[in-house]
């Protein structure tokens, strides 16, 4: 294969990588089947121009996914020959499980497999964003991800801000806008078994989540068995320079993340008294994503989160973040947190679009010559 010409600008977080001592908070959110199905149709199942030999479908029953906050204090590449100097970052991402079938030439759907897809993620480290987008194809945006310090282990307060536009108009200016607010107050810890007894519709998803986090203190096997590290599929695409509707490259990339040395695992429920607040701060830059992926209803009035009503807008020196936006709540069914070492590797590029035509063209040219 042809060598990639690397430089300081591409010395990024090259996979595989290991994150040591990662703090993870995940929030279980229910969405509609239409949200899941429409996303899969738009990104994975369509003719582009050829169809991938895979069909992605929603799981049967209620649709749950995870909005996850992860704080990586030290992460380094283990790729041979690549820079392995450590870096740190925080990210917030939306991921959900789907079923992927292999499609035969007779259009039969065979070999069902549960994989996770990750429609969006926010990250506060540009090196990680460039690597995620350019190597394994995660649709990641640079954001300010602020975690309030000094809270108890069962508390969390996260603010996410992006460079966005409040209301699309030719005269609007891009600014730092609040995007997401997550607040978990103290208490509300539950036993998962008791919690699921009252919520049978969540049992299937809970089993998948257990797969996702791996077994405490032990290395989760990469394939097979109930503790298998799950596969994460991303659509990797690069826009053509001259024709904005075309892609220079488009492929489905499969990767895998698993956790070892899991500690401090705790589950929390969101009740009326101990509500877990999660809000989308409404702007035109975020509206489409919130409605199509999370099914959030556009808010009718200003609804600044309580935390931000009392406090002056915070900023990290690049100017204040505007939180004076309508907020739309997202219902959280369950939350859990743990610390672990996270391992990540790319499995393979499952399918490269357009290659079938390229190969046919090449065969025709060879015949002609």
């Amino acid at each position, binding site marked *: 294969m*042809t060598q*990639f010409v690397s430089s300081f600008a591409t010395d990024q977080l090259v996979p595989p990588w290991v994150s040591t001592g990662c703090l993870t908070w995940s929030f279980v959110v229910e969405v509609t089947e239409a949200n899941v199905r429409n996303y899969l149709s738009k990104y994975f199942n369509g003719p582009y121009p050829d169809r991938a030999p895979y069909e992605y479908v929603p799981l049967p029953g209620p649709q749950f996914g995870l909005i996850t906050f992860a704080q990586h204090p030290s992460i380094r590449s283990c790729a041979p020959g690549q*820079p392995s100097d450590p870096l740190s970052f925080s990210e917030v991402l939306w991921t959900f499980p789907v079923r992927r079938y292999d499609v035969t030439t007779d259009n039969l759907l065979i070999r069902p497999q549960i994989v996770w897809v990750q429609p969006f993620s926010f990250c506060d480290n540009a090196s990680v964003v*460039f690597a995620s987008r350019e190597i394994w194809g995660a649709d990641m945006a640079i954001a300010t991800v602020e975690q309030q310090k000094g809270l108890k282990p069962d508390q969390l307060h996260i603010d996410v801000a992006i460079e966005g536009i409040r209301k699309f108009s030719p005269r609007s200016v891009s600014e730092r806008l609040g995007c997401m607010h997550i607040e978990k107050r103290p208490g509300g810890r539950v036993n998962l078994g008791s919690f699921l007894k009252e919520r049978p519709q969540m049992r299937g998803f809970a089993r998948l989540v257990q797969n996702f986090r791996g077994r405490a203190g032990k290395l989760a096997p990469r394939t097979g068995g109930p503790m298998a590290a799950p596969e994460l599929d991303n659509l990797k695409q690069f826009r053509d320079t001259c024709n904005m509707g075309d892609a*220079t*490259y488009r492929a489905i990339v499969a990767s895998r993340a698993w956790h070892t040395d899991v500690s401090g695992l705790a589950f929390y429920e969101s009740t009326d008294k101990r509500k877990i607040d999660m809000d989308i701060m409404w702007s035109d830059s975020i509206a489409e994503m919130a409605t199509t992926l999370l099914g959030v209803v556009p808010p009718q009035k200003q609804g600044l989160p309580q935390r931000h009503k009392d406090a002056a807008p915070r900023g990290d020196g690049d100017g204040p973040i505007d939180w004076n936006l309508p907020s739309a709540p997202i219902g959280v069914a369950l939350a859990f947190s743990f610390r672990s070492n996270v391992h990540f590797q790319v499995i393979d590029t499952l399918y490269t679009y357009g290659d079938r035509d390229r190969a046919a063209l090449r065969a025709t040219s060879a015949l002609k010559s």
Partner: protein
Amino acid sequence: MTIPYVQSSASQEVPPPYYFPGVTVNAFVWEAQMDRISAYCDRFFNLGSTKERGFVYKPASAWPYAMLMFMQYPMMICSDDKENVGSEVEYSNRGYVSQAEVFVAFPVVRYGATAANLVFGTAMEWALPFIVVGNAMSAVCGREMLGLEKLLADIRMQEGPYPGSFVASVHLPGWPKAGAQQRVTPFLRVSTGPELPTYRGSPAASSIWSLLQSREAGWGIDEVANFANLLGVATAGLAPTGMRTVSLRQIRDARDPGKALYQALMSCVTRYSNVREFRFYNEANVDITFSTAGSFGDILRLFHDVPANTPGMKHAIEPKAAFRFQADIDFGQMLTLHTFPVDRGPRLAPVPASSNLAAPWARPWLGLLRPERR
């Protein structure tokens, strides 16, 4: 064969062309190190053999200077008038972005290696070995669509303590030493004295004006600033009036990121108009200091020699000229100049080479000579 791009309103890649009104440019010119430029050309532009490519990039010996440009864009407007591919609002109707940008540029010449290419494919372009921006979407867009090696940086620019002076700094994420945690530290600092004429004394006769008195150097500055908008008129369009850049756009393999799936030379044009407020600084009062600590040394070494043990891990560059102006900028005319042949591994068809190397002046003539497409 076209592959549709799936767009959402959160898509980071805002497609060119763009229009940037009222841009403030602070530019610093120093003598380029030709061996470094030659090595840069070989590493990023002259991939494969000369025979396969049909061209070779070399330093522009007629204008042996490099430029450090600080750009302040109050408005960056997407001027694409094509129909949107998604269902959401068109990029051009969403609003505008403001940002700061800093880059180093030096001219390179593409010589055709065949008789036809030598006549029609020889052109001067600008290479950008270092470019940083303050806006995240600009960084993503420049990297993914144009192949520019943009990094996200904390860029500060302001007037210095003297009237009309300039002070700027660039902070970048980097690794101060091997094995250390990544952190944001100062990479570049520039300060000038007051603009000329100044109460702090006249510049040396051999400095700024010597550069302008040199026809080649003056032409190089014209290339950037279109020197008070007269060049295009005076030369009836024969002299270049825009800054055409060249960059290597690559897509790397996911499983083996050390391998490439796509490599192409991209070109785009930055055209300056309505140039105004042209002011010079006395270059004797200009301080340009790069940090060479840890990974920062690798950045500087791409275009400049860095002594092994620089005092304080800093390296100063002495400029030959320094000036400031305001202009309106049109950015566009993207071209894929040359797609390099790429072996994508056993399961994928290889990417064949293709070229579109005609120099800008030759394009209308070649359009007349080539047979009509059906």
